[in-house]
């Protein structure tokens, strides 16, 4: 097991190296002089020289790269051109806003998606199966911005049950410890604030959960159908084991590996910032942050944003790979 983990972690280094080179090169993909483009047409030569120096563009390529990686390793993600603030400090709260939204959305997606898939496979070719599959098809086909707008129209505007945008009410002032507001409010005993935060997260997380939920349901169903045909499931039934246990113990564990893969990919995608959802719901997340940086041509922020998203994606897949070995004992020995 240890050897597997070490091998799998060593495999990260080439990926992270490639990623850093790509992200670093973004600045060179800009046609013309990056400093000029950042500052606009009417910039003075002095100002351009200033920015070039600030970005290190007057140094040779490899020195720039090593400086860049060296800075990354000390946690320095550069300085925002727009705000002049440290990118790391600005990015962190946005990242955690997205993390919180993703965790809630994925919890909904996994719980409903996996169970719907199981029921669908268990009751294969019945009305329940068809119903789940129709919902799953609608789920994957529905544009998330449309779903978000409909949710707002129905639950915020017409029914006034839930707030339509933002992370909290204007008057709610959460004291950030972890920046995950649900946890912050709970550990500080601010139950009124917790309720407010919870009410705000429902609509965006449901909108965000829909597509992963549908994909997870479809994968779970097909994987379960395969497994339920296998000989060892017949063996379990021949032992007189209850149907529920055959399905949730014997079948699910065997069917779960492709489901985990999909969950990992979907979680990575959501963490990368769901720009549409975050924009519609005014969620101050990573997607919005990167989007605003693109609008402002704030290249250091774009670079760091992409780097953080890609790194998260790689690490989520690492976790999924390690979980494979927990689920399937055969993987350790290969």
């Amino acid at each position, binding site marked *: 097991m240890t050897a597997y983990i070490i091998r799998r972690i060593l495999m990260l280094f080439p990926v992270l190296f490639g990623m850093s080179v790509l992200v670093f090169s973004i600045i060179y993909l800009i046609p013309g002089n990056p400093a000029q483009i950042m500052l606009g047409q009417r910039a003075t030569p002095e100002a351009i020289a200033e920015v070039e120096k600030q970005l290190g563009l007057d140094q040779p390529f490899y020195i720039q790269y090593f400086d860049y990686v060296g800075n990354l390793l000390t946690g320095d993600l550069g300085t925002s051109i727009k705000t002049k603030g440290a990118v790391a400090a600005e990015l962190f709260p946005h990242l955690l806003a997205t993390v919180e939204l993703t965790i809630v959305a994925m919890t909904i997606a996994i719980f409903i998606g996996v169970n719907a898939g199981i029921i669908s496979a268990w009751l294969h*070719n019945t009305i329940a199966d068809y119903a789940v599959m129709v919902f799953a098809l609608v789920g994957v086909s529905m544009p998330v911005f449309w779903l978000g707008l409909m949710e707002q129209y129905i639950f915020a505007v017409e029914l006034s049950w839930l707030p339509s945008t933002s992370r909290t009410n204007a008057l709610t002032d959460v004291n950030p410890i972890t920046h995950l507001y649900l946890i912050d409010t709970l550990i500080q005993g601010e139950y009124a604030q917790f309720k407010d935060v919870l009410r705000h997260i429902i609509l965006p997380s449901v909108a965000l959960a829909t597509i992963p939920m549908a994909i997870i349901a479809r994968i779970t169903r097909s994987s379960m159908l395969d497994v339920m045909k*296998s*000989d*060892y499931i*017949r*063996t*379990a*039934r*021949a*032992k*007189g*084991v*209850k149907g529920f246990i055959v399905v949730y113990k*014997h079948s699910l*564990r*065997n069917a779960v590996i492709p489901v985990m893969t999909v969950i990992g990919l979907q979680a990575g995608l959501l963490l990368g910032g769901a720009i549409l959802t975050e924009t519609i719901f005014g969620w101050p997340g990573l997607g919005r942050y990167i989007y605003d940086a693109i609008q402002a041509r704030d290249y250091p922020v774009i670079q760091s944003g992409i780097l953080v998203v890609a790194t998260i994606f790689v690490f989520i897949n690492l976790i999924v790979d390690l979980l494979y070995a927990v*689920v*399937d*004992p*055969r993987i350790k*020995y290969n």
Partner: protein
Amino acid sequence: MLKEYELQVKGLRTSFFTDDGEVPAVDDVDFYVREGEILGIVGESGCGKSVTSLSVMGLIPKPPGKIVGGEILFKGEDLVHASEKRMRKLRGNDIAMIFQEPMTSLNPLFTIGDQLVEALLTHKKVNKKQARQKAVEKMKLVGLPRAEELLDDYPHQLSGGMRQRVMIAMALMCDPKVLIADEPTTALDVTIQKQILKLMRELNKKLNMAIIMITHDLGVVAEVCDRVTVMYSGKVVEESDVKTIFKNPQHPYTKGLLASIPDIRDKVDTLYSIPGNVPKPGSIKRGCRFAPRCQFAFDRCFEEDPELYEVSEPNHLARCFLLDEEGEQQ
């Protein structure tokens, strides 16, 4: 006095309902097995042996499968109309089954120990420790070495022969009255086959358990069985004790099967095989199902379906018009 029937199957009919209509996989099958007896059910692939055994276990996938007629009596209790709950109580407890493919019949993600104790924990009131003790005891009974260590191993760490022994140990966990073995040695190599067959014979003697041995291999039948039922295309075509069937086979199909066994003393260039293939279930609507492949077939064989006729020896039946003495006189 003869012992009571542990399991008796009367007129069993199991069909699969497909888009092309009803396909009768098992059509009017009778057999029985007594305490301490080994019954062989023999036939080629596709003759309905496995469907018969799955019907007894109540494990026919439905839909599309369904038992459409007949009776399955376990100690006199009808299993065809038993509730799923009742069947679950019987499965693994009173009637156990082992399967053809030891490589895929064990769940790859659970330890041998987990899988062994499961049947016991499901059916009997025992704690985990007692269950593990019993598992070790059964593993020793089936000749598995270093049983305690094996409990924490996973199936992929075991050889095919060892896995089949684990399957047998698993089937024995609750001391079943009837053990159905569906081609238990087919996937194993020859030396391991011998060991497993010897083991089954020993267990039968030691535990006085009824065994139904499903096989396509008459060699297996000769080695372990007391009586034999020959099936062809969903029907029983011949039934007798083992000695009789080898000495005096009556049905042309049985004769063909026997002739197909290669004999090392014969110096022939080509081995004998019955011409043709088993017909697809439901494809023959009229007459004896073996008639198209039978060298003795005459007009009547293509018109009418023969019944099981008594042969001169006691308890020897065969489904062939050649044995219909009244018919011959007509």
